[in-house]
């Protein structure tokens, strides 16, 4: 009954499997955080294009991140991580090499830690976005068909359909999609479905001053990303790694994947996300067994014993 053996998990070209005959090549984002300057042009450009309402007006104290997370009112979120690793820590070399910050010679007052002042300081920045997964749990569980796979292989909430049931919000392994207060519906990045339909570039990718956010056919982006990681490794940036690029991962690979400079959870990303749909068949089996048990118990209750 499944159109493709990998319909529920594993490597797949999602648009054709979702019924798009002669679909265009799958489009996506490659976000190279090693050139992100944390300017948040992506956050603003996204809000301006999609008329996304304001999010909070409070200082969060999370370095320069006052947005906090991807929400219904922030479809792009730039994360900031200030890392002052003690000298010995094998942090490897940052995109820009660990920066010496500390005091020359003697130990600065009131500062525990190594004799040499602070070394190995890094300031990681990363523009987070919906992953547009190959296997999108939000899309799978959506009971109204509001969330759907577009011809470009992206995942979009149709605001004219969504009735705010909230299921997608629990299903997303990255914690991206969110329900908007006062509106009730679920909202997230649409990879500018209207713009790419007109042959334009998504607003965030167009604005990004250093092309940390690159838009294009996913296969091309994956090649470019592999080359970029290789270059960085040659230049001694040992801990550059890709995240969400591998079609063999738990969600079949992401439509929007990243080059990170540290472990995913440092940025608030799950280290090994798996689409819940992968286990759905086993779940239905288990439910079936329970249902049979229930029926049997009921029958037994009435058939057995006279009183």
């Amino acid at each position, binding site marked *: 009954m499944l159109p493709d053996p990998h319909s529920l998990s594993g490597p797949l070209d999602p648009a054709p499997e979702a019924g798009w005959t002669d679909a265009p090549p799958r489009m996506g984002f490659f976000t190279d955080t090693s*050139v992100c*300057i*944390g*300017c*948040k*042009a992506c*956050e*603003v450009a996204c*809000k*301006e294009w999609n008329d996304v309402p*304001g*999010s*909070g*007006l*409070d*200082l969060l*104290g999370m*370095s*320069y991140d*006052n*947005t906090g997370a991807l929400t219904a009112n922030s479809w792009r979120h730039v994360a900031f991580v*200030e890392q*002052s690793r003690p000298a010995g820590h094998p942090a490897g070399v940052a*995109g*820009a*090499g660990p*920066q*010496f*910050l*500390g*005091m*020359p*010679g*003697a130990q*600065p*007052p*009131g*500062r525990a830690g190594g004799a040499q*002042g*602070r070394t190995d*300081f*890094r*300031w*990681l*920045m990363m523009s987070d976005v919906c992953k547009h997964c190959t296997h999108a749990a939000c899309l799978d569980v959506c009971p109204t068909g509001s969330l759907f796979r577009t011809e470009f292989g992206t995942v979009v909430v149709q605001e004219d359909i969504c009735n705010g049931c909230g299921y997608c919000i629990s299903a997303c392994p990255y914690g991206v999609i969110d329900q908007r207060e006062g509106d009730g519906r679920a909202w997230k990045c649409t990879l500018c479905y209207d713009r790419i339909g007109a042959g334009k570039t998504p607003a965030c990718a167009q604005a990004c*001053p*250093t*092309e940390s956010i690159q838009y294009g056919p996913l296969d091309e982006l994956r090649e470019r990303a592999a080359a970029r990681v290789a270059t960085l490794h040659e230049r001694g940036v040992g801990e550059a790694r890709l995240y969400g690029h591998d079609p063999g991962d738990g969600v079949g690979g992401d439509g929007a994947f990243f080059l990170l400079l540290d472990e995913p959870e440092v940025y608030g990303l799950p280290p090994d996300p798996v689409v819940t749909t992968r286990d759905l068949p086993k779940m239905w089996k288990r439910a079936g067994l329970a249902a049979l048990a229930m029926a049997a118990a009921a029958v037994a209750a009435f058939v057995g014993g006279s009183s």
Partner: protein
Amino acid sequence: MAEAHPVGFQWVMEAKRRGAKVFHVDPRFTRTSALADSYLPIRAGSDIALLGGVVRHILHNELDFREYVLAYTNAATIVSERFVDTEDGDGFFSGFDPETGSYVQDSWQYAGHESDSGSGHTAQERDTAAGLRHESHGAQVGGQTVRDETLQHPRCVYQILKRHFARYTPEMVERVCGIPREKFLELAEAWTANSGRERTGVLIYSVGWTQHSVGVQYIRTGAIIQLLLGNMGRPGGGILALRGHASIQGSTDIPTLFNLLPGYLPMPHHADHPTFDEWVDSIRHPGQKGFWGNARAYAASLLKAYWGDAATPENDFCYGYLPRMTGDHGTYQQVLNMIDGKVRGYFLLGQNPAVGSAHGRAQRLGMANLDWLVVRDLFMIESATFWRNSPEVATGEIVPEQCRTEVFFLPAASHVEKEGTFTQTQRLLQWREKAVDPPGDARSELWFFYHLGLRLREKLAGSELPRDRALLDLAWDYPTHGPHAEPVAEAVLREINGYEVATGRPLSAFAEARDDGSTAVGCWIYCGVYADGVNQAARRRSRHEQDWVAAEWGWAWPANRRILYNRASADPWGRPWSERKRYVWWDPDAGQWTGYDVPDFERTKPPTYRPPEGASGPEGIAGDDPFVMQGDGKGWLYAPSGVLDGPLPTHYEPAESPVRNPLYRQQANPTRKVYAHPVNSVNPSPPQEHSQVFPYVFTVSRLTEHHTAGGMSRTVRPLAELQPEMFVEVSPDLAAEAGLAHLGWAHLVSGRAVIEAKVLVTDRLTPLRVDGQIVHQVWLPYHFGFEGLVTGDSANDLFGITLDPNVLIQESKIGTCDVRPGRRPTGPALLDLVADYQRRAGIVPGHPAPTLTPGALAPPAPADGAGKGRDAS
């Protein structure tokens, strides 16, 4: 650069991808530092010590690009034997006059030109911010100079420079700036290794670098390094100044500034320029080499553009109508005059001094003592509502019911509701098309001032008073269009470009300007923007259809040239220094200069051309003199004139510093401009007592998410939410010492004000060990004010008013303060806290410490006083 010019920063990332090494020097680790290959923490205000160290590293190891330096700079020129360097004058050059706190520059001149300086007492040049005039034309110096091509003569510039910076060793840099030796050497070695025929390096600074009492000398040191390493006039080289407003460059080219007329012609001075001829000769300096020779044509054409038919050769083109300067009429002097009730009316045209200028309290008290104030802006900014919502209303210093200022707020048109040109930071004019009409009463400045002028002329029609002639004879008749009778901006641009009076034909180059009244040119350096009657600034040939210089996008002054002094991108014989760095070169067959850019040289003058004896003006420039605007055609490692506080950059401590100047007895720049007005004050610095009352150094700058005084970002929702509250960044060490909690409150106290801010404890700021003592630095954004979606205290309130001598810009990048946990007091109690600090610091408002450090041996004033010692009246 990633903070305040992020889209420009793409080119740094492009260079980095191609293997360029990026160094970032900043008191605080910023988003630029995050992407730099190497970050150097520096004590704010000690940049000359660092860059001086780089100069020493170059000269000590003879790493300069010798061919370039010999041919294109004044390294070989011999300086007068009367010159005494700061090394021997304990922080003073020769010619210092303690009375006026300024230099007589005669002893600085090249050998044999001692009487040429013509500067007399530079105190008057300081008042008129004369330094700004040299933005587009070099300072004057006489014809031929004595040179020693072997660079061994003890008084050649090369050797003077070597001796001047001899003590700026890596150890001294570490001691003064707090930068570890190995980090400094990493920078110096990379910078010098990246020089020569095959390689260039660029120095990029943001305009905050100028906001120091030694600001111009910062840039001079950068220029010296870039000249020594042969980076000037070459692709991938030079110095890039990143300005903060869309058209700051335009605002000095066509200056709404008190001391300049369009094209950097100086406003006439009542004593120096009583007549048109004296005014013109003071610009052109007869006998000078260089392109300033035809200044008479530029001046006459400007006056012709102003007064049209009324301007005739007979009446010196209405030169008599021009108002005259008598001294310092800068914005800070004006504010002090406002406080003293001397100013009646004040126009604010898209500027918010209540937050953007230094000493916010003085700005607001000044506005409270006006007859009337006209604010033209997009939003209801702090400078329009000071009488109701300012901190001074809270402390009771301004009582709305007693504040007599009549305030007009007129809404302004935004950049999409009017057409016109901006001049961006690379001198490029770009025309903006108009998208929609302005809403409601919003109007452009073009509309407001044109119709204001018409209204004034109507009211003065028939007046016999001489003073009204200037207005009545003004050429003030521009075509208008649209529902609001908006003046046609292209008509104004045509006038700026200049035209032949008889035919109306737009000129194509400033060489066509005449001094006989046959041409009218609004701004001679912009001549060519309307060449062939086409609005060149509106050109939008796509980058995909032209080369990397992209000469057909917009128009750059002068003459659409993109890299100035690009003659230096070829060797003395006109051949490119290398294939890799080919840019402009001599084409012997065609007999002219050619290349990717408009050559910054007379097209057909061969490299072998040598001027005849006594030649002046453009003829005086030799075939190997790339710096065509300089009096000697050479790049100035040593500035015999044009810079008021010394021919060579010297490390002085900022006006407010916790550290004693380790290099010289003189603590701070002796020629800095200080105001003794009661509202003003300067925190004590060593060797004065009580400097420990303000133990910490604070510096301010920008956040990517906000724009200058916040008027165009705190009022815009998607930006306001990105940085929603005023905060102060402190190091963990200072947080521990001062008892500050992350996200808790702190208040900062200076000699002028107390402000509060949320605390962000971060490792991006670190204490520095300077000269044996620990110096803590804190950082503040200066965007916040009391209006808009997000509000906060203004960092600029903390600063006093101390200006640099050359261009009278305020020192608002470094100050001393105290930091205490908790929120600041409110109401009158706030004034008591400031008064208490002033008392403990020995500050008596109105009585600043003397600019000369007691005991600093000022060299005796030159005995013969040979210079034309004209005293300022």
